[in-house]
Structure formats: C-alpha cells, structure tokens
C-alpha cells in the first residue's frame, strides 16, 4: 500500500504530479484536418481533484485520451507536452507509457457496460494487469480480483468473480471498472463521465465510492463531466472547455461564485438548482460548432449573448481573473464585475 499523501491545502503549492502544456490534438478526416483540442494547459497536484467540464465534442475526452497515449497516429496528431513527474508522456517509448498506464495513471469510462470486455470474466479483467505486471499465478490473481471487488463494495465478490459483465447491472459494472483501475494503486485516476450512463441513485453511490477511495489512497482524480452538479460536490478545481479549448479555469468555489466566461455562466444558469430554488432553466442558444467548422475568432461567439465585434476576429487568450482563476474572454473584466 502506498503511503498516504497529505491532504491538500490551498496555500501549499507542491510540485505538480501531471503537467499538461499546450496540448493539441487533431485528426485527418476526408474533410481535411479537424482540430479536436487546440492548445490546452493545466496541472494536477498529488491528491487533487480536477474537474473538466464541457459539452460533448468539446475535446475534454480526447484531451485525456491523448494524455493516456490512446490516440492512434494516423489519423490522430498530438502535439505539446504532457509531463508526468517531469517526464514527457508524449515522447516516451510506448512500452514506458504502457507501464505508466495502470501503474501510475488509470482511467475509467463513461459506459462501463461497454468498456468491459463481454467475452472475459470480470475477475480476469480486474486482475489482468495485476497479473501481467506482478507475474502472479491464476489463483493469486483471482484472490486479488476478489479483494478489489470487495474494496469497491461488490457484494458476494467471491461467487461473482467468474461472472461475465452482462450478468452485472450498470452500476456494478462501473464498480468493476473502478476495481480494474485500482488494481495497481495508480497515482492518478481519470474518470471520464463515470456516472452519466447510470441512474441518479446509482450515480451518487459511485461518486461516494470514488470519493472514499480517493481519500483512502490519496490519489489524484480527474473527473470529466458535463454535469456541473457533480463538479460542485466533488472537485477542488474545475476547468471549462469549449470547442477544444479551455475557456475558464478556477477553484470550484470561485467558478460557481464568480463565473467569468459567458459560456460558464450559461452552463451554470442551465443547471437545475440543488436547493430547489425556483426559476426557469436557461439553455444556451445554438449548438456547439462541429469539428472542422470552427468559427473564426472566439469559438463561442455565435452563441454568445455578450459578443462584441472583436470576438469575431480575434480569439481571446486565457487571462487571469483572480489568483488561480483564468478565463478566455475579451470582456473578462466586465464579466467579473458584472
């Protein structure tokens, strides 16, 4: 068992565990090159919980897949730097990167049911990497699987370790996924919309489980979601993405109290209030741009209620709004004081 990390305080600025610098991802398509992620930078400290928020197609998943080295080239092209403990993940050998995966960084996926191999038993899948890396026997691997299943609170693990995924419910599958991710005690767990496909009650259970596990192991968690509610409850710091770029980044309280980008605002306003306060839900007008049909200037301008002429011509850079709070809007000053 790895040593527990001391819990993070806002004052401390420890060396980042993961640092992403100007990450760009694009794909060859028959329509030409399509940019999915365009210059994203962020850091993750040990034990921290980072939320990445955005609609589907905003590049949040692709960015994380790039970090994991899961983007195939061709057709994909990845540029920039991803430093894990100071080492660039993007340029390292595939074998080294594979070692990183599972061992240091693990990932769980949105639809656990389809992210589990239907042809292998859950036990095999949970302990697969453990068995490969630790070179242990079949029986030991199974014992490990049962242990992990117990940890993610799958009832009667021993008898179900040889079941196939289709014999599990959605929530249980997600637990299996999590158990799989935990097999090698990773430092970072990336959860890509871990609860989207689940019922509301099950969602809560899974999130609680993740929070518990994070507390126990002290691992850093990157939570990708379009569910602001989830972010509000779970994360330390949140990053909002739109059309492949970060539009706002802030500690979660700051983000909700003082959203500085019109898109963030829109998102927050379209969120049903947990306190049940009445008021109409405000949807953001229009649809996100299709990849490859990126508007000039600020990608959000066609949908922005605050847009000015400059938004059409010039893409805004991320600018600090407050300590550890940045936003990419030409009107960021006005927005903050709005």
């Amino acid at each position, binding site marked *: 068992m790895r040593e527990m990390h001391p819990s993070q305080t806002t004052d401390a600025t420890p060396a980042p565990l993961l640092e992403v610098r100007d990450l760009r991802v694009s794909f060859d398509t028959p329509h030409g090159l399509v940019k999915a992620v365009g210059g994203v930078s962020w850091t993750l400290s040990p034990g921290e919980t980072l939320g990445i928020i955005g609609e589907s197609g905003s590049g949040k998943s692709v960015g994380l897949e790039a970090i*994991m080295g899961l983007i195939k080239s061709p057709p994909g092209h990845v540029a920039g730097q991803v430093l894990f403990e100071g080492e660039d993940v993007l340029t390292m050998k595939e074998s080294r990167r*594979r070692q990183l995966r599972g061992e240091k960084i693990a*990932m769980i*996926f949105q639809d656990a049911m389809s*992210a*589990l191999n239907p042809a292998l038993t859950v036990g095999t899948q949970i302990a*697969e990497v453990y068995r*490969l*890396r630790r070179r242990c026997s079949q029986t030991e691997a199974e014992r490990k699987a049962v242990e992990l299943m117990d940890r993610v609170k799958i009832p009667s693990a021993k008898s179900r370790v040889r079941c196939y995924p289709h014999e599990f419910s959605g929530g249980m599958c997600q637990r299996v996924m999590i158990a799989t991710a935990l097999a090698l005690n990773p430092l970072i767990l990336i959860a890509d919309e871990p609860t989207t496909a689940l019922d509301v009650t099950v969602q809560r259970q899974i999130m609680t489980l993740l929070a518990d596990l994070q507390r126990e192991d002290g691992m850093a968690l990157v939570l990708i979601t379009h569910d602001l509610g989830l972010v509000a409850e779970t994360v330390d710091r949140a990053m909002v993405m739109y059309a492949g770029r970060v539009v706002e980044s802030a500690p979660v309280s700051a983000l909700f109290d003082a959203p500085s980008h019109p898109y963030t605002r829109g998102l927050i306003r379209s969120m049903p209030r947990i306190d049940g306060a009445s008021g109409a839900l405000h949807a953001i007008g229009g649809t996100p741009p299709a990849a490859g049909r990126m508007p000039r200037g600020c990608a959000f301008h066609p949908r922005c209620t605050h847009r000015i002429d400059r938004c059409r011509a010039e893409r805004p850079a991320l600018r600090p709004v407050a300590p550890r709070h940045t936003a990419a809007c030409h009107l960021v000053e006005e927005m903050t004081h709005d």
Partner: protein
Amino acid sequence: MPYLLRRFLQSLTLLFVLVSFVFVVGRIIGDPALIMLGTSATETALDQLRENLGLNEPIWRQYLVFLGDLAQGDFGVSFRYGFSMMPSDALRSEGTPVLPIVLERLPATFLLAGTALVFAFALAVVLGCLAAMYPRSWIDNLVNVISLASVSVVQFWLGLILIIVFSVQLGLLPTGGYGSWQHLVLPALTLAARPLGRISQVVRSAMLDELSRPYIAAARAKGVPEWRVVFVHALKNASIPIVTITGDELSQLLTGAMLVETVFAWPGVGLLLIDSLGRRDLPMAQAGICVVAALVILVNLAVDFAYTVLNPRIQMDNRGGRA
C-alpha cells in the same frame, strides 16, 4: 438445449431433403439404367438392369426401398469399380458395395481439407489482426489483395500454376500423389488460398469493429500490452463471425477438395466421385455426394455448437439464422 436440438432436427431434415433430391434426380429425371449403361446400351441390357435394380416397381415403393437401404448404410453396389467386363455382363456377378469404398477415401480428404483449413485459418487470423491493427498499411493492402484474389482465382488453375512453378520448373515438390508431407504441400496450399482470403477479410473487418469498441480503449488505458489487446480482448469477441466464415469455408473446402484432388491425383472422396461420374457409376456417385453433403451439413451444425461455447452472451434460443 432446445436451440441445439432444433438445429439438429433441421439438419436431419436437410439431409432427408438432400437424399430425396438425389433420388428424384437419379430416378425420375434420369433413368438409372440408362445412366449406368450409357445411351447406346441395348434394350435387353437395359431391361435386365431395370429388373435387377427393381426399377419396374412403382416409384413410391422404390423410394421407400431406397430410404430403407440408406438407413442401413446400403447405397447399392458398383458394377464399375474393379470390373473389366461390360456392365451388362458384370450384372451376373454381385458387384462391390459402394459405401465402404467411399468411407475408405474419407481420411485422405480430411487430411487435405484439415491441413488446408488449419494453415489458412492460422495465417488468416494473424494477417487479419495485423491488418486491423494497422489499417491502410501495406499489410492491410496485402490482406485486401489476397482476399480479392482468392475469390477471383480458379482453384484448379492455381494448382496447375503451382505445379508448373514448384514441380515442373523448380522440381522442389512432387506434382501429385499421396504419402509424404511433401505430397501434401501443394494441394493444401491450393486449397487454402480461398479460405485464407475470405477468413482474413472477415477477421480484419470483425477486428476493426471490435478494436473500435470502448472496452478496447479501456483495456489499453489500464495498461494491457497491445498484443494482448488484439489477440485476447478483441479476437475473442470477433470470434463469432470468424467461426461462421470458417465453417462456411470448411464446407467449401470439402467441395473444393474435389477439384484439387483431381489436379493432384490425391486419393480422396473427391477424386473417387469425379472418377465414378466419369465411369457412369451411379451408386458410387450417389454415395459420394450423400457423404460429402452430409459432412457439409455436419460442419454447419458443428459451427452452431461452437457459438454456444464461444460467446457467453449468446442466448441461443433467440438467435436467428446465420447470414
């Protein structure tokens, strides 16, 4: 298992239909006496043969007798196999039961078809997987070329070309015959070409399908080595279409073996069948066809059994017919 039971009964029905078809074609469309003696036989000889074969009985009774004999493994006797006399003369003697002769030839056909299939299957899986791993690479193009070529080439011609190159020109391998492993190489290669192309194509597309599924990304994300991702995770899930096409190809192989055996003088059922067709040996031809067709039906059945083993998700009772 009701599904498998149903499939079994279906196969039996098919076999029954086939046997009836053989009867209809042999007895009603054709005149067995005429087939066996040739168009220039005399009426007396024809009459004698008809009498001997019971062809003067009403047709329904002939049919029952035919079915009854078949049920006992009696496909009739051959007046051609091992007789130097004219058939009409040979009728005076007893003739050779045909079924044992056909069965005697089966191992050779199995050896040929089995070798070809194992070779084609192993290579096709590797090639197909590689092609799926590296789409649009040279190996992907190779698989494409092989699979297109394999459905465009005439098998027996390929065999002849191999003979020209490897036997006549290079003198490396025997031109035909049966015995050592050298004899097996060329016919097996010839026979393997088609299944190689077809199976590798299916492996490729099935694997492409599987490799784009979320569980593959998940497996990669958790650090499973790529070879394991492809050959364990994806391949296991792609096995259903692969088994299906392999079953189909095995059926094809059994018939394809007929031509290949002819080209390479390989003493299997196919060679016997072609031979007996040439000698107008109706009982032998019937037995050969029934045995090969029964094998094909059996293979199809075996493929269905294989499904239940291969994929835990398959609910056999809800599954429709295979494509």
